[in-house]
């Protein structure tokens, strides 16, 4: 009985591009205005890099390049894991997600906005690290390598967004930050982001391929010619597979949560 009414009431469709853009803009502002999130996310990777990659590593060019690449990966992890893991948990639990599901938000805008936010944060962190690396860290790269590593860092948010989304679709708001920290810091260590895996016990190196951060670090290192010689494609496949599995699980969990 209502088909005709459905047609004539909303003759023109809303402009989805505007909705996507505003959703992303306000997601970025929301996070930027949350100091408990923005400060550690933006400051920790440059601080750690300054301490371990620059101050404690005078003169070793190999280590300087290795650490610049791996700290770029470390900088990618926080905005994606915290933005999704903690953000989704809070918005799911407090009802904001429900309100948006009721409102005619364009499909996908919620996730795309959060991904855009994470990618922008990752890019900002990368730029800060790159400036430090070039001026203080004794890193010298071709222009193409700087840009390509920046692209790897920006696109690298994807698997961590998926992992964060999986956490956020299940964890409660108060427990999510602890849970994310429990994954974030150990994974960085176990993936060789803070020191090369060949300096760590053998079994850590052997299980490292389980962690997405390991594969992203291998890609980052290959980009600046410091890789272990392995082909990039299996790493890309591992990251995409990990992303797909996390998204699939998160979808199931989110469909159940209201």
């Amino acid at each position: 009985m209502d088909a005709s009414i459905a047609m004539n009431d909303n003759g023109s469709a809303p402009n989805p591009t505007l909705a996507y853009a505003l959703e992303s803009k306000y997601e970025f502002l929301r996070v930027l205005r949350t100091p408990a999130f923005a400060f550690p996310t933006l400051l920790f990777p440059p601080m750690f890099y300054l301490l371990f990659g620059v101050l404690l590593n005078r003169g070793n060019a190999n280590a300087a390049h290795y650490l610049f690449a791996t700290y770029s990966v470390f900088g990618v992890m926080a905005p994606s894991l915290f933005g999704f893991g903690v953000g989704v948990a809070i918005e799911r639990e407090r009802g904001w997600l429900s309100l948006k599901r009721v409102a005619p938000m364009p499909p996908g805008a919620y996730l795309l906005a959060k991904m855009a936010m994470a990618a922008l944060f990752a890019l900002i962190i990368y730029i800060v690290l790159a400036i430090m690396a070039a001026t203080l860290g004794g890193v010298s790269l071709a222009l193409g390598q700087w840009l390509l590593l920046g692209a790897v860092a920006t696109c690298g948010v994807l698997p961590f967004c998926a992992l964060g989304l999986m956490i956020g679709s299940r964890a409660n708001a108060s427990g999510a930050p602890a849970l994310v920290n429990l994954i974030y810091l150990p994974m960085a260590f176990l993936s060789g982001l803070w020191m090369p895996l060949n300096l760590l016990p053998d079994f850590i190196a052997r299980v490292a391929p389980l962690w997405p951060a390991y594969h992203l670090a291998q890609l980052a290192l290959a980009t600046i010619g410091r890789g272990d010689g392995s082909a990039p494609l299996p790493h890309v496949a591992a990251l995409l597979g990990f992303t797909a599995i996390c998204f699939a699980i998160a979808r199931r969990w989110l469909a159940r949560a209201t």
Partner: protein
Amino acid sequence: MNQSGETIAQLQGASKRYGDVLALDQVDLDVRRGEVQALLGPNGAGKTTAISLLLGLLRPDAGSAMLFGQSPGSLTARSRLGAMLQTSGVPDTLTVGELVTLFRSYYAQPRTVADCVALAGVGDLLRIRYGRLSGGQQRRVQFALAICGRPQILFLDEPTTGLDLDARETMWKTIRQLVAESCAVVLTTHYLEEAEALADHVSVLARGRIVAAGSVQQVRARVAQRRIRCVSRLSEEAIGTWPEVRSVVRDGERIEIVTDLAETVVRQLLFEDSELSELEVRRAGLAEAFVEITREAA
């Protein structure tokens, strides 16, 4: 524009179970264009579950939920509704203006920002972050988000909780205005005067079942009880033995009698006490009717 009577949202024999708890038990509900349907009931009666079924946030285990003739949840259905949920978790760090701008972008022909904030009474709060607002102001901002897309049906889950009297009046006025423009409204409330002031239809829920439904007058009439107050020398013990009397209490020098047959009791009172004074007979308000109906259902 007068298409009043057309059903916009409907539950038919809808049931919903959470584990062992039957939250809704074969509920029927009809929401028509240009009408306010109030859902009354104590906490846990199933009001929010009923709204969640109509919004498509939940699916019924049995029976059906329809919105604009389709099952709820589609993008077209959502673009024609507005909702104020009980908990909305609006991010604290965005300003009122940013929130309204964001929600407007979801609709093809939204109200202007000025209209939204004027209708919701938050025009002076545009630059303020949501987290710095009082509870009542936050509620009004949620109302602004609910109406910004010119909805044809508005779901309001306890909309005036935490509002002061002025703000509540403003919201009531806006709701009446929207209804006059043929918007349908589903309203849950604890404030019975809110249902009396706004609702065309009232459905009383208790333990997941509709125990009474109809106009405010019909629901009130479901409870035949009336309250008699008077000053009398008769003792409450004596009155309490009359078969028609449900209860008697003394309140200072006054006696208050609750009965289904007020005329009989008044006749008897005047017969036994010729000096009886200050006689008052009052029909139960919705509040009393509601307490009585839900007690019967329990």
